[in-house]
């Protein structure tokens, strides 16, 4: 298994490429953009992108689909049936997928968006915007904040301390570190959230 991180200047978001060194099949998590550099990297390593996993459908995490799907016949997995007009294989909470040779567990954690999911592969959690290093994803209301915090506590922070968190923005982390020092998981955090409708990613 090979894992590469790509920092997209469009929305300052992270994309991840996960490749199987035997079958040379790969999957991409959240292609916020799909650049020539990424293409060269994929081709240079002899990978074929067979699948795309979307943690949620905000534009900064999906815009690269338009280019990517012109090059690769990749199946798109998301918690919604269409993203940017592309049909998706709809995933649901608790499902275990076999994607590009990887076993992927789907964990639904709505709150940042209704379709937010976390993908777990081995000991790695692709958390999208649900959980970042030190903070949780922005929400539009205290209800959504509570929904997100409850989901994270029940399903994500119950994972092993050493599980790696690869978020949609910012640096990586571990479950142990987030359990101890994430601001969004402080008691009463959800009640501090005020309803905002400004642009967010």
């Amino acid at each position: 298994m090979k894992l590469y991180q790509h920092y997209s200047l469009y929305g300052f978001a992270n994309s991840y490429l996960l490749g199987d060194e035997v079958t040379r099949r790969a999957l991409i998590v959240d292609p916020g953009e799909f650049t020539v550099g990424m293409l060269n990297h994929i081709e240079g390593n002899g990978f074929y992108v067979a699948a795309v996993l979307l943690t949620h459908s905000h534009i900064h995490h999906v815009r690269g689909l338009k280019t990517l799907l012109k090059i690769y016949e990749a199946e798109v997995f998301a918690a919604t049936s269409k993203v940017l007009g592309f049909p998706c294989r709809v995933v649901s909470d608790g499902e275990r997928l076999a994607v590009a040779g990887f076993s992927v567990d789907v964990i639904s954690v709505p709150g940042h968006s209704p379709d937010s999911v976390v993908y777990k592969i081995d000991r790695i959690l692709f958390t999208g915007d649900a959980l970042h290093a030190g903070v949780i994803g922005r929400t539009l209301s205290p209800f959504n904040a509570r929904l997100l915090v409850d989901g994270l506590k029940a399903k994500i922070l119950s994972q092993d301390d050493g599980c790696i968190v690869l978020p949609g923005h910012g640096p990586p982390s571990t479950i142990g570190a987030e359990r101890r020092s994430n601001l969004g998981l402080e008691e009463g955090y959800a009640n501090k959230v005020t309803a905002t409708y400004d642009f967010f990613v």
Partner: protein
Amino acid sequence: MQCFVPCAVDGCGKPAFASGDTCLDHAPDREAALAAASALLESSDSARDLSFAGAALEGLNLSGRRFYACSFMGASLRSVLFTNSIFRLCFFDGALIDSCDFSRIDAQFCSFGGATISNVSFENSELLHVSFGGAAISDSTFNKSNLYDSRFIRSVLKNVDIVDCDLKRVYMLPLKQDNVSYKYSNTMEAVRDLEHLYL
């Protein structure tokens, strides 16, 4: 990257330690495993997908090495020189890092979450997308470093110099800070309150 071999003991689930078959807890001879890990680190120019979780390393010179997807989680690092080294997707979460030199390193996408860092120099370094969340950092310096998109959330900083650093997109939300100097650093470009998170 991050393709650790699991511990050979059924039901353990932790990554195997260094080049061994088991994690450090299940190593038949802990001291021998630690000595082998030190020897492996000192003899190689680069380390990839290796776990040194829980290791106790002291007095090593690992300058100019390349570390890809290595884990030092919960390790104890004392008087270890990492000068001029390269780190990608490396984890030091919960580690005890004392009197070490990380100056002139190039670290990207790494985590020091919850680490205890004292008497450590990160001077003249590239520290991009690095998390220091919940870390207790004391008597240490980051002077003249690029900290772009790094995070100091709920960190405890005491006697720390962050002088002449690039703090663009840095989340500077420490739990407590005492005698921290940001002189000549672009603090206005850092995120210093929850209202301005870029999420």
